[in-house]
């Protein structure tokens, strides 16, 4: 009798011991952001190979030589080699070092200077994605956060007269705070209502874009009063990150490096960063350990937004100082995702990935000019990098990378 009752009473639960709760989205994020450094390097190599194939297929001289492939196959290979090596060499020359232009120090250093110039906002924005990911959040809102940051930093830059240095600093900090607010809204909504951060950030991208457009049409807000186009006034001279004379690079790269160091200290050394990582890796355990998961979520998005806002500030104070439009983010908000991905959200990885992408931007223009290969190739390379990082098994197969002996 009692046995029967007991059996009814048993409300058996599935064993939780070896079957942790699965969350496919979270797992994918982990896989995307937690690969090994080796995987990142191999992904870049693999995408260069794919890029070479694309160059070969689209190059008119290769196509011409392929027309008589069976008569003289050597021609095809020669043309192929020429097209691919030409493209990558010109990419390298535009980004790092050009042996054909060594007449002055300025010429020698110009490509590197351009790379650093493009890398600065990419690195800062990359950290804006990376820090959110440390808490398991996907910050797709880089564009909106950058636009808000750029708008506020720009406004400070062309309306508030301040002494030099201080003016730039105030403008950039104002931009970062605006970005933090824009990102923080997302974190707060996520923590309070459970709304998904991807949806929220994407929607806020539109809000920010249309908001900036509105402000740029309104002479009382951001529009240049001397002009009817939706463009802001130029920055005051005191609010500009001036380029080194003769080069493009400016103090933005120093700010980027400072932010990388700050990020490193925060994630690796600080107790708040420790909570960020704990919540990101295992929110249940973090909650049981007394951590305020909602607060950490809100802060993570706010910090991510702050980095993005700062990147927006660097855009208006360093890259486009003569007045900006609603496209001031220059696609960096999205490219930052790839940067963080390639850098596995680590401080130094993101720095290196940002430099690589800066180099691709710098070299891409040179490649287009010298080899008539469209700069879109750079986008294709970046897209394939993401693809390969998302499919580690594919990369491992391509490179005969040893598989884990035991899982």
């Amino acid at each position, binding site marked *: 009798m*009692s*046995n029967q*009752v*007991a*059996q009814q*009473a*048993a*409300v*058996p*639960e*599935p*064993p*939780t*011991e*070896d*079957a*942790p*709760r699965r969350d496919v989205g979270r797992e994918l994020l982990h896989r995307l952001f937690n690969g090994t450094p080796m995987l990142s390097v191999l992904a870049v190599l693999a995408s260069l190979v794919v890029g070479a194939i694309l160059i070969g297929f689209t190059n008119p001289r290769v196509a011409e030589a392929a027309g008589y492939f069976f008569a003289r196959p050597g021609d095809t290979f020669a043309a192929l080699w020429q097209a691919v090596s030409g493209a990558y060499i010109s990419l390298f020359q535009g980004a790092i070092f050009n042996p054909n232009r060594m007449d002055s120090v300025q010429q020698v250093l110009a490509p590197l200077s351009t790379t650093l110039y493009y890398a600065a906002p990419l690195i800062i924005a990359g950290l804006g994605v990376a820090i959110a990911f440390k808490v398991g959040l996907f910050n797709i809102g880089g564009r909106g956060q950058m636009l808000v940051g750029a708008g506020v930093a720009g406004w400070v830059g062309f309306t508030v007269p301040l002494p030099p240095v201080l003016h730039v600093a105030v403008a950039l900090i104002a931009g970062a705070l605006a970005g933090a607010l824009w990102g923080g809204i997302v974190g707060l909504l996520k923590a309070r209502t459970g709304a998904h951060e991807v949806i929220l950030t994407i929607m806020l991208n539109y809000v920010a874009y249309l908001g900036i457009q509105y402000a740029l049409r309104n002479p009382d807000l951001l529009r240049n009063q001397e002009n009817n186009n939706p463009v802001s006034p130029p920055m005051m001279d005191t609010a500009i990150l001036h380029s080194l004379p003769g080069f493009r690079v400016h103090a933005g790269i120093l700010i980027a490096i400072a932010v990388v160091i700050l990020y490193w*200290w925060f994630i690796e*050394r*600080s*107790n*708040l960063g*420790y*909570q960020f*990582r*704990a919540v990101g*890796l*295992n929110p*249940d*355990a*973090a*909650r*049981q*350990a*007394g*951590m*305020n998961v909602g607060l950490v979520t809100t802060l993570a998005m706010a910090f991510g937004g702050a980095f993005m806002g700062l990147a927006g500030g660097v855009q208006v104070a360093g890259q486009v100082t003569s007045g900006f439009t609603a496209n001031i983010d220059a696609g960096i908000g999205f490219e930052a995702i790839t940067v963080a991905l390639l850098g596995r959200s680590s401080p130094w990885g993101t720095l290196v990935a940002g430099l690589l992408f800066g180099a691709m931007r710098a070299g891409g223009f040179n490649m287009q000019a010298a080899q008539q290969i469209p700069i879109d190739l750079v986008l294709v390379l970046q897209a394939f990098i993401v693809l390969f990082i998302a499919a580690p098994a594919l990369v491992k197969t391509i490179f005969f990378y040893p598989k884990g*002996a*035991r899982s």
Partner: protein
Amino acid sequence: MRLELRGITKRFGTFTANDSIDLTVEAGEIHCLLGENGAGKSTLMNVLYGLYRAEEGEILLDGKTRHFASPGDAMRSGIGMVHQHFMLIPVFTVAENVLLGHERRLGGIQGARKKVKELSERFGFDIDPDALVQDLAVGVQQRVEIIKALSLDAGVLVFDEPTAVLTPQETDELMEVMRQLRDEGTAIVFITHKLREVRAVADKITVIRLGKIVGTAESTASSAELASLMVGRSVSLNVEKGDAELTDNALAVKNLTVLDKVGHKVVNDVSFSVRGGEVLCVAGVQGNGQTELTETLIGLLKAENGTISLNGTELTGKSVREVLDAGVGFVPEDRKVDGLVAEFTVAENIMLDRYIGAPFVKGATIDFATRDEFAEQAKKDYDVRAQSIHSPASSLSGGNQQKVVLARELGRELDLFVASQPTRGLDVGSIEFVHKQIILTRDSGIPVIVVSTELDEVVGLADRIAVMYRGGIVGIVPADTDREDLGIMMAGELPKHLQPAAEEVEA
């Protein structure tokens, strides 16, 4: 069918999981494979089942050498396996699950239905072939697994830790089924680390330790003998403890009611108190409100009604942080999900709930020197077997993970200690250690609450036992209460002759 394994050796890199293992299982015999977690039992069975290929050795069925490239091969040769975690598709019916992968052999869905009916009648299972698997209780799902194996005329049946998910009653019924199968001539391999079960059902016992066979035993062997074979040293299965010396510290819970998301009472008007220096064990079949009770105690769930107070301080409605700061140590039920961050190192896990202020944080920066020193000490004191304090927690065995959790929770000044299923999934050696720590904590004069579904553990540790059933406490009885009576209480009834005792203990 007679199964013979000869000299099976399986290596993973430099690690030898099975070291030339010989094993013979006769038809009509229940052969227990006993060993701690990680001893190599499951690896051996996966070799047999065609999931792994052994580096050396051979598998013989009825004297003929066989090679299995896949589980499909093994199944066709008459080897069936009932996995610890069921390999069933919840939205399929029983018959569809049985049919899956053997459509031709069983002759389509009608053939499968007939087979299920026939087998279920033969063993008295009472299973409807058209029932959806997700609607079945865990014990019944396991029977579906058994039917799946039998439907392919398995001559050798492997049960891999089958009782881990079962209630005591379901376990008894499973053993009855195993005996019935044996009597019909099936060779049964029963993998487990639970000594009580081994002694109840085994015809022969083989003990594996660190990938090697360390001995065989008859079912008449005592639990202590088996345990010492398994662990490699003598272990005490009984918890040694002195009489409770009560102190004035106390946790008082009054009329506590907790609702779940849909408004059901998961904890229903529960009142009890625990004095310093005693262990109150909360017993009961899993899912009767114990989890919710402990989670409410530490502030993870909000009480709908009632109060919790510790040494006169109100804890009701406080956040987890505030409760922990009030001196509550908590070992969560599921350490992998709630107790540890698997990717964190041992040292990082040691500071998981002490991330603000002294001793591990100075200003806003983690004081790595102090933390690592503490972690090294904890590793030594709690005998945590890890390569270093900088190894990720995921690389540790379950027992060592639990030691990390204990080291963390007991590493600070406590006023109350709550441990939920502290030994679930642990090996004998670790269980002994954990129990010792719990008793030491009790003897330091603070109230201790242990929630457990294992009756042995409850009886061994408790000074008093509270039995929960459907969210309420059936009664609080002395530790020397008869097991039979505790079983009846777990089903929701308080035996008449226990009522005076229960009242006395409660007061």
